[in-house]
Each structure stands twice: as C-alpha cells, then as structure tokens.
C-alpha cells in the first residue's frame, strides 16, 4: 500500500462520507458508490501489484496478488446489485412523491416535538383519588 493509494482511498472515503450525509437519495447513492470505490482501492492496494495474474504470462514473483482482486471483484458486483436495488427505491420514491428526498421518520419527529407522552398510563388523576387522600376542605362543610 503506497501513500498515494492510501491517500486516494482516504479521499474517496472523505468525499463519499460528505455525500452520504445529504438528503437526496441520488446523492447518497453517489456517495455510497464513492465509498465502495474507496474500499476497493484499499482492497486492491492490500496486495502486491504486478502483471495480470495469468499463469504463464511471467514468473510468479512478477504477478499481482490475485486474491484481493478476486475479493474486490466480488465486492464490486455486490455493490452493483445493491445499487440497482437502491435505484429502484429512488424510482419508487419518485412514483410516490415525485422526488427522491430522504424524509425523516414521522413517528420520531412526533415524539421529539410533543409536549408530553400521549397516554397517561401513570394515571395521575386516578392515583390521587384512589390513594385515599381527602383534602382538608372535604371534612368540614
């Protein structure tokens, strides 16, 4: 792993992170794609570089490490599948809302902005009553 590769991966991760923290799903998808690129840079960078690992095209020492390549390839293909799914989600979002904005969870917002819990399970009224604590005024007319 050269400094350049590490820095490139870091840069991709940084930019990807910046994009993932946005509200438009299409930007988020781009961010995730960049993060995946960053991870794959790390992956291929984790093995030796060299000639394409095809037996017979050079001595074994000069070949690039094939394993990280295979792993990166797998991860690339998986990312592709999931990206397709995410795009389907954006498409669905467009069908329903004509946009791909990531909306906040309504229930969370409701809880965050309500004054008090909806239900008084503690039953403050009932409790005062059944505890049998008559006020002084009740005794004397």
């Amino acid at each position, binding site marked *: 792993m050269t400094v350049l590769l590490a820095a490139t991966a870091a840069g991709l991760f940084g930019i990807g992170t910046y994009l*993932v923290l946005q509200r438009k799903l299409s930007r988020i998808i781009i961010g995730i794609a960049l*993060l995946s690129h960053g*991870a794959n840079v790390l992956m291929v960078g984790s093995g030796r570089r060299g000639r394409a690992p095809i037996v017979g095209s050079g001595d074994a020492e000069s070949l690039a490490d094939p*394993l990280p390549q295979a792993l990166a390839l797998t991860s690339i293909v998986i990312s592709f599948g999931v990206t397709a*799914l995410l795009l389907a989600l954006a498409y669905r979002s467009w069908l329903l809302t004509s946009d791909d904005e990531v909306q906040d969870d309504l229930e969370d917002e409701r809880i965050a902005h309500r004054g008090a819990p909806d*239900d008084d399970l503690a039953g403050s009224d009932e409790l005062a009553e059944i505890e049998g604590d008559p006020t002084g005024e009740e005794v004397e007319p």
Partner: protein
Amino acid sequence: MTALVTLPILLPLVGAALSILFGRSRRVQRTIALSTLTAVLGMAVALLVEVDRHGPVSVQAGGWPAPVGITLIADRFSAIMLVVASVMLLSVLVYAIGQPGAERNHVGFQSIYLVLAAGVAAAFLTGDLFNLFVSIEMMLTASYVLITLGGRLEQVRSGMTYIVISLLASVLFVAMLAFVYASTGTVNMADLAGKVGDLPPGLRSALAVLMLVVFGIKAAIFPLFFWLPDSYPTAPSPVTAIFAGLLTKVGVYAIIRTQTLLFPADSRPTTLLLVLAGATMLVGVLGAIAQGDVKRILSFQIVSHIGYMIMGLGLFTVGGLAAAVLYTVHHIVAKTGLFLSGGLIEHAGGSSRLTRLGGMVRTAPVLAVLFLVPALSLIGLPPFSGFVAKFALVDAASERSSYGVMAVALVVSLLTMYSLMKIWISVFWSPATEPAPAGAAGRDRAAEPLGGPLLMVAPTVVLAALTVAIGLAAGPLYDLSLRAAADLLEPSAYLEVVRG
C-alpha cells in the same frame, strides 16, 4: 458430515432458484419453501447433536485446504444458532403463509425468504471472514427486498434508511477486510487467529474496534442502532418478526465469533463493550418507553436486549459468554413470538397504535395469552426462558465484579416490564381512545375464534410454548451454552479441525 454443514446453505439456494422458476404457482412455491426449511431444521438439529458429541465439524469448499479454499465449520455456538434460526424461519414462514394480504402473494416472497435463510445459515457456518461478508450481504439483500415489499410510502422512507445504513456497514466491512488482508495476507478466520496476534497492538485493537463497529451496526448496538426502530416496524409483520429474531442476532454472532476467535485476550475491548452494552440497554429501553406503537415499542426493545448479549460477551468469562448464548437463544424465540403476536394484534385490531387498540383481553383472549407469555419471558419472569438467561447474565457480571453493568441490566429489566405493560394495558385492558383508521381490516370474531387465521396463530403458539420449554429445560440448555462458551474462549478444537 459434509452434508450437514453445507446443505443448510445450499438447499435454500436451490429452493430459491426453483421458487423463481416456479413463479406461476404459489402452491408449488410454498411447498418448496416449507419442505426446504423443514429439511434445514432437521439437519441443523442433527448437526448440533453431532457437534456437541464429537466437536466441531468442518468442510473445505471445493476440497481445497484451509487458507486456499473457504472453510465451512460448525461448532456448538454456530450449531445452536442454526437450530434456533431454522425454527424461527419455519415458524414465520407458516405465519406468513397464513397471513392475508398482498405481500405473501408476491411472486418473489418465497424465493427471497429462502435467500434470507441461506444467508443466515451461511453466516453462522462460514469460517472465512470474506465469506462472512458475502453471506451477510446475501442475507441483507434479501432483507432489503423483504422490508420494501409492497412499496408503500413509509416502507420506501424506512427502506432508504435501512439500506443506506446497511451499505455503510458493508463498505466499512470491505475496508476492514482490506486492512486484515494487507496486514496478515489471509481472510480465513482460523488462519487469522494465529496471525493477528503478531500484529502490533495498536493495529490489532484498531481492527478489533472496526470489526465491532461493522458488526455492531448490524447488531444495532449503541450508538449504531438508530436505523432499526425506524425501519423494522414498517415491514409486513412476518418480515418484521423474522428480522427481529434473526438479523441483529447474526450481527451479535459475528461480534462474538470474531472477538473471541481472532483476538488474543489482551486486545479485547472489554471496557468498551461493557460501556456500549450498558448504553445500548438503557437508550433502547428508554426509546421503547417513549413509543406509542406496538411494533415500535418491540423494535426498540430489540436494541435494548442486544445490550444484554453484548454484556455477556464483554465479561469475557465462560459464565458471561454462556449467558450471552443462552440469552441470544431466548431472545430470538421470545422476540419473534412477540412480533408474531404483535402482527396478530394488528390483524385483529386493524392498527398497531396503542391509542387505536383496546379491550382485547375480552375480544381476543387467546391473543392476550399469546402476547403475555413471550412478554413475561422477555421481562425475565420465571419459569420462562428470559428468567434463567437474565439471571445467568447478572450472576456472571457479579462474579466478575462488574457491578455497574449489572445494575443497568436490572434497571433495564424493570423498564422493559414497564414498556411491555404499556402495551398490555393499552391494548388488552383499556378501551381504545382513538377510532381505528377507516377501512382497517377489522376481523370477523365469529370466524376467527382464535383471534386470527389458524396458520398465523399456530406458529405463535409454538413460539410461546418454546419460550416456556426453554425456561423449563434451561438446565441442559445452560450446560450446552457453557460448553459452547468454553469452546469460544478456548478454540483449540476449532482451530485444529480447520488446520487439519
């Protein structure tokens, strides 16, 4: 033996493929799925018996020896998880078939469900870190599809959260794998177990922490859990139930597996784990208390109870790990059961909001019992499964003088009770304070004396009975957990069987 370790992964895959091909007939699809999962359950049980008697069983995929080929391996811990997972998968499938509605009729449901089953099994059985990644991806992709099946607006919203966060975890996973390979030149877990120890301490603990974060996102531990309560409740009930039971547990499994197997004792993030465990328990249960919807309360409780499992791991004693294993088993059963009864409540009452439900102890007494049993188990009341598991945890914490986390565990137990009783009181006792939404599927009481279709009620009953059974048979189960925990802390047999 080869078959026992491999077929639980391969059969669902073949089943999924057949299910795709037989897309024209739901009946055939259901037969495929039911028979596949039944077979998997049988094999899982056989595997557990075998592993418990004779130690870990491993297979090298393709016949290639260990670091070259992928290792599939079952030890007691993975076999236990596989058995429990198979039971859940089968029960929830039956429930899903019994549930009226569009989702279960979707042409893709059965095949995706089988993919999920394969992913879960593969995650439990793999002995290779990269294959673990791929297995989890398989499970997650299936879950992405299941959680958005139906395509309603709130599903799209929560699906975005769920998928994006999961993808971030996946990206970090790949980065972590790259770091692991860069420093050790291998991704085979048994191979890594020998090599990670040679790494400098800083790198070692950085890898340990990164793994914890990666799997912690999936396991929903604090502060990585936020996605869960927002996304689970929007899915169809059976989907939520199987997610609640299995998905986070795969994360927990991975945390326990990697932290015990890969890292030498001196680089285990004990304090970090215990702090996170406590925070997870507490924040999760507070979230549950704040909610006003059955499924959301139950979802937050998942988070809270993940804390217990992490706590057991964080103790890094045989007792603690055994408790964590037992707790995980208990939690899977009880929580899945609760979500199933939550689905029945929704079916019977037309909503899952507390304010819209009420008086069901009279209108649906069977549901009351079906809710109460797993609820009491989750609270930790004897003789249900949760009691022994929770006690084992507290006992282990006390043994190790980890009083802080022990206190949190006890307090959270109480708060769990409060949040569950909130459901009990609102749904079963008090009258509804809000009318049910217009057009809500109010069920025909006369037609459904059980409170729901038979195929929905039956699996719920089975899980409720199971949580009682686990409680009653806790002795042998705890012994098994102890053996599993001992294996985890002293994995020599595991390593031997892989290295040959």
